[in-house]
């Protein structure tokens, strides 16, 4: 590897991910339509409905998928180049949407196997690294248990552990909190926030609470295009003055639901005398989706 490449790879560049006019089509159907993004250090959340292009974007960023057109730079390198791709992958951690674990391996053996595939060949050093990452996700005590005997949350953490191997500069997490109970989600947030201090973390999720709690930045994708890019508080701000509560549901609201105290929380255009509430990221997302739908209609 040349010196220039070393210079780029040894630290996080200003933009760990940089895409220009990124498109991906599946049999003519666009999954991504000209995405321009620069993502740096910190936690960036991707929100969007199913089929919005989140997983496609993450798979391209994880070098598992090639774009149809446009350019991608990861940590300053071009993943389309066969020479650069291994270098990127050495500095990349990926948690796919499907776990893909080997059930008859122990947690230790599976992470060890992935460590070999990440070119950790010195046995002693590799085993130390495997113990370290399993400790990071609080699985040190169960590392000798077969994966099939672990709970769903533990399995999620095994996939996270393998992603942390080698102290990657770029972490790509596709719906990492699916299936986790509240306590496990809190633990997960703790681990991720620890990791994100000096590296780039990109995660896709349907959990707006995770975005609110974790992310410095949120990007909303709809039909392969970016419809929002900013801070979570700014996304929540889209719903300022548009969230209210009443004893009866309002049919003109974008969405309304009955709360635990029997009243109805609504998002949309409130009546003049409405009792307004502070908006959340979820409210902002709903407003954005509603606006997007109106524009599309």
């Amino acid at each position, binding site marked *: 590897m040349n010196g220039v490449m070393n210079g780029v790879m040894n630290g996080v560049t200003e933009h760990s991910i940089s895409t220009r006019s990124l498109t991906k089509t599946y049999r003519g159907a666009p999954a991504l339509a000209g995405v321009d993004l620069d993502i740096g250090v910190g936690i960036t959340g991707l929100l969007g409905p199913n089929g919005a292009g989140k997983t496609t974007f993450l798979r391209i960023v994880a070098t598992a998928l090639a774009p149809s057109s446009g350019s991608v730079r990861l940590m300053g390198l071009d993943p389309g180049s066969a020479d650069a791709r291994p270098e990127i992958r050495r500095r990349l951690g990926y948690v796919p949407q499907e776990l*893909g674990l080997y059930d008859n391996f122990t947690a230790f053996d599976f992470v060890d196997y992935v460590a070999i595939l990440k070119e950790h060949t010195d*046995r002693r050093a590799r085993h130390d690294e495997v113990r370290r990452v399993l400790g990071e996700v609080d699985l040190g005590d169960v590392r000798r248990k077969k994966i099939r005997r672990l709970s769903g949350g533990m399995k999620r953490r095994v996939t996270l552990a393998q992603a942390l191997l080698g102290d990657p500069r770029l972490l790509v997490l596709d719906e990492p909190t699916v299936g986790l109970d509240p306590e496990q989600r809190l633990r997960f947030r703790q681990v991720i926030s620890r990791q994100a201090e000096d590296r780039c973390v990109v995660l896709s999720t349907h959990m707006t609470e995770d975005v609110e709690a974790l992310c410095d930045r949120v990007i909303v994708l709809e039909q392969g295009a970016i419809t929002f890019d900013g801070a979570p508080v700014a996304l929540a701000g889209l719903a300022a003055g548009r969230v209210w509560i009443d004893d009866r549901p309002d049919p003109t609201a974008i969405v309304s639901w009955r709360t635990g105290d029997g009243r109805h929380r609504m998002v949309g255009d409130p009546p003049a005398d409405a009792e307004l509430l502070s908006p959340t990221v979820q409210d902002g997302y709903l407003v954005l989706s509603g606006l997007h739908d109106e524009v599309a209609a």
Partner: protein
Amino acid sequence: MSSVELALGRVEGGRLVRNPLVWLGFGVSALWLREALLNDDAEDRSAYLIGYSLVVPGFFMLCHAALAVLRGRMTGAEELFATVPVTRDRRTVGHGVSTLAAAVTVVCCLAIALVRWIPSWVVLLVFPVLLVLQFTLLGLWYGTVTGWFEWVGSLPTGVVQDGWYGTCSDEPPAYCDLVVSGFERTTPWWHAAYLVALAVWLVTIAVLRHRRDRAAGTAFGGAGAVVVALAVAQQLVLERYSPMVGR
């Protein structure tokens, strides 16, 4: 081959060695051979020694190798493995290396056999290794559990008798194809070379699946030519075999 492939081979080989079914298979094989060696009837003895005894452990090894090769696809782990620096080609080599421990054992047995002039049936121990290697590579190539049968299914049915090896007719008078004369008390080198060349050719097929450049194409063509040449060579030296009366 780099340390990555060796590390993969060590891990996969370790899992193979820890598989109790493989050892159960070798236990059955040992009992079978013991029975064969105690049998005075030459024909029965040869029947026992023709490698059938290796079918059981060989079968379990094949199953193990099949699952090892296919588990990435079966569990959906390929998406994750597509994002690591070690490519599928190198994993293929790692699976092949996993049979190295068995191969070393075979080479040792062969060396002892040659030194001590033990009849050449010992060389048949190489077959499980080759079968596992071929199955591994073919499993990767075909992506199915059954695709390899037509390629390797006939190998364990070979016969060794009085230092001869071949696929033999059950009907009297027994005769063998693929027999190499002049090696009655040593190993059937031509056939062993043919099997090795076949294994190399299968490696090139597996590599071609992921890498299609001039070097891979040349290796494929060259290995294929060697396989054909050795197959022809076996036919040229073919000699009908009739068991000696009274043995």
